[in-house]
């Protein structure tokens, strides 16, 4: 049995009980009474800022009013109508940057309505019930290939199935869910929620799941175009950026995405090895997820090193606070210059940085930290070819139309914020556009209905 002080990378640093406690639900679900008290704080704002701040434009005041009036399942339907992955979004959305950040009570009191937790309360109520709340329209006879069973692909597939199309949903991995399944901190998606949500979503019918099919390896864009009436590409970002520093090839230096995926798929977290001294390079959500989970597995020292200032970190303030509350140290304005060790990594050398207005530069001053495990969380890259690009992502116009006719794209592989909720919105809107194109009808409005028709 090892412990947090065991040198090197080792499994079983904490007892099974300690690990279970560490990886429990980050926010326990609200019970009925708590939900009604929380819902009572909503002002039912006109043209509510929270709705505007939500990429999927969920009618938040309406669903909260439905909770307040004793109908959490109706509330859940209001949410899922707009965002079929409303359950996962309730768990992983950076609400402090989105709906809750926009809440008028955040501005007034610094205490927003707990929209995320209320959304979970409502969606949990719907998902706890047998069956699926949406029906399919009569079959259209059209077939659509959706490549990538992550949030964008799932949202797209569900909306297409709802409109009566038959969908084949491919994924390169052996399990659907994308980053929901492989890439989110375990304490945000407990009890196998990601897999349960996919199963629940597919209950609508008309979605044939084909895992283990990678675009470019097992299937091709041309092949899909020939076989299907339309194609949606939601393949995410399959590659990770490499660290450009001497020693980056040493044992113990690995990408954070792979570590998180292994952690999410581990049957027994006590058997997952983690370093005694862990350093995570990066400043986004992935960096925080890797750092916090390393700490929760029993690493003695965990440090996040980010090359720019705190205000530039991709991780939200809540995530930063979560990390520090778990004992993670965040060092800003420091970039890796070398990883030292005798074979395996033992130390990382960081150089302080400053931005004098002409770009980020090293100051020459360095510090060394013990590091037997170094996680790279410095961004992910598109690994797919065959469509015109916008920068390093797939170029799209309108509701996800790519440079190739009949091919749509959405999610992290297209420009925009790399958030689950953004991917859902893009997948949903692309599905409506595919439907409209295939059927020769106008795409229905997917945004929030605020009722300004009378003024027009």
């Amino acid at each position, binding site marked *: 049995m090892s412990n947090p002080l065991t040198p090197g990378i080792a499994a079983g640093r904490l007892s099974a009980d300690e690990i279970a406690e560490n990886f429990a639900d980050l926010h326990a679900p609200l019970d009925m*009474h708590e939900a009604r008290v929380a819902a009572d704080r909503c002002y*039912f704002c*006109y043209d509510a800022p929270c709705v505007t701040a939500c990429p999927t434009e969920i009618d938040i005041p309406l669903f909260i*009013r*439905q909770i307040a*009036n*004793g109908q959490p399942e109706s509330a859940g339907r*209001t949410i899922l109508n707009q965002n079929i992955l409303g359950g996962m979004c309730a768990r992983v959305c950076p609400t402090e940057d989105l709906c809750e950040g926009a809440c008028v009570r955040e501005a007034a009191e610094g205490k927003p309505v707990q929209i995320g937790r209320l959304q979970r309360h409502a969606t949990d109520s719907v998902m706890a019930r047998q069956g699926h709340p949406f029906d399919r329209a009569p079959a259209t006879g059209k077939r659509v290939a959706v490549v990538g069973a992550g949030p964008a692909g799932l949202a797209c597939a569900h909306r297409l199935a709802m409109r009566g199309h038959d969908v084949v949903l491919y994924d390169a991995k052996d399990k659907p869910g994308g980053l929901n399944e492989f890439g989110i901190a375990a304490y945000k998606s407990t009890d196998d929620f990601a897999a349960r949500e996919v199963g629940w979503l597919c209950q609508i019918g008309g979605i044939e799941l084909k895992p283990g099919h990678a675009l470019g390896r097992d299937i091709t864009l041309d092949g899909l175009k020939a076989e299907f009436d339309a194609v949606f590409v939601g393949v995410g970002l399959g590659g990770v950026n490499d660290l450009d520093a001497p020693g980056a090839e040493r044992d113990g230096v690995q990408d954070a995405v792979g570590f998180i995926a292994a952690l999410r798929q581990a049957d027994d977290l006590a058997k997952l090895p983690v370093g005694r001294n862990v350093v995570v390079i990066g400043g986004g959500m992935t960096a925080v997820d890797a750092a916090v989970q390393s700490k929760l597995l029993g690493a003695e020292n965990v440090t996040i090193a980010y090359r720019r200032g705190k205000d530039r970190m991709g991780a939200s303030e809540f995530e930063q606070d979560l990390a520090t509350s778990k004992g993670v140290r965040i060092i800003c304005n420091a970039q890796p210059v070398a990883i030292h060790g005798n074979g395996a990594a033992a130390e990382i050398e960081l150089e302080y940085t400053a931005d004098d207005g002409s770009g980020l530069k090293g100051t020459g001053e360095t510090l060394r930290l013990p590091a037997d495990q170094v996680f790279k969380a410095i961004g992910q890259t598109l690994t797919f070819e065959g469509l015109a690009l916008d920068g390093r992502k797939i170029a799209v116009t309108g509701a996800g139309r790519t440079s190739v006719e009949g091919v749509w794209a959405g999610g992290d592989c297209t420009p925009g914020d790399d958030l689950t909720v953004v991917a859902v919105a893009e997948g949903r809107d692309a599905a409506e556009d595919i439907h409209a194109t295939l059927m020769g009808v106008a795409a229905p409005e997917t945004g929030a209905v605020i*009722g300004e028709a009378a*003024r027009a």
Partner: protein
Amino acid sequence: MADLTTDFVGIKSPNPFWLASAPPTDKEYNVRRAFEAGWGGVVWKTLGAEGPPVVNVNGPRYGAIWGADRRLLGLNNIELITDRPLEVNLEEMARVKSDYPDRALIASIMVPCEESAWKAILPRVMETGADGIELNFGCPHGMAERGMGSAVGQVPEYIEMVTRWCKQYYDRPVIVKLTPNITDIRKPAQAAKNGGADAVSLINTINSITSVNLDTMSPEPSIDGKGSHGGYCGPAVKPIAMNMVAEIARDPETHGLPISGIGGITTWRDAAEFMSLGAGNVQVCTAAMTYGFRIVEEMKAGLSAWMDEKGYASVAEVVGRAVPKVTDWQYLNLNYVTKARISQDDCIKCGRCFAACEDTSHQAIAMSPDRTFTVIDEECVACNLCVDVCPVENCITMEELPKGAVDPRTGKTVGDYANWTTHPNNPAAQAAE
């Protein structure tokens, strides 16, 4: 999805949610917005006789009661009937009705208690194509001082007389809106029915002073340092309104008379409760004034979801369903015996139940040194006060003693149904059959 279509005295609307005659229905702009938002019908703000319209105060018209988090619980107002010319209102009503033929549009009317006044306005209203009229015998402020509004509603003979005129000069449904500022609501309802009314609507607002400014000693809303009583409405008046609706619904003389329920309706549940007590549809005002017209979405979705859950296919199946359960005290079962039960798992040891019972009730809760609260069955009269003051929902519940059990308080065995009319202590008791 349950069918929310409503047929109220022959007036059809896509749902039972109408906006009451009030500020939200004062003009075309608002009413169009209401219909776009999905309201089933609108009772237009009360029209007065032709000629110079009434004037309103130019200071605050509303007073309010709030909960601690500024939730609006009660509102009162001193606004009068429409202060816009009759001709303008009639033109707008005709336009709106022709653009929204599937929605109910009712003209609320208040003119002097003279036959000629009613005879003059009714044909004008007829020309608008409105689906019916509502006689405003309810407003308790301002107009009542001029012999209209609640001044009429408080005299059943006047109600009957005016209703009769309206039935004579107008051939569409006549709804009589009642004032709650009266001792026995059944009398004006009977008068309306005797006058030939197709329906009654209630309640109008209740005479009230919402607050007094203790610095200026002026009641609110204050107009240049003085206040006048206003009409109280909003969630706070709902229990009063529901009782009055039920009284009319179960009175043999008015039973079956269609009722449009009004009074603090804010959610689908409020509407369902009013309808269960006999209201064929409901009218809403304060909730719309507080939250905007969009709240009707929650009301419709909520009512529909609840009806689906209960298996009610149409609104008509809900109307009046609870009326047979409303009875006189004398018929309540005196052999229904319950005892309070405190769930120790849920108890947070605040002691409010103990204070309530020990100080103000029957000393039926024991408190141990470690703050465990238990019910003393020998003392518990089942008053329910502990349940009502307990901050934790379902922590204290009332448990029914089964038939044959002995009530430790009275030492008597729980028997079959028996009420006061046959009780030995009742001097007027009738012999049991």
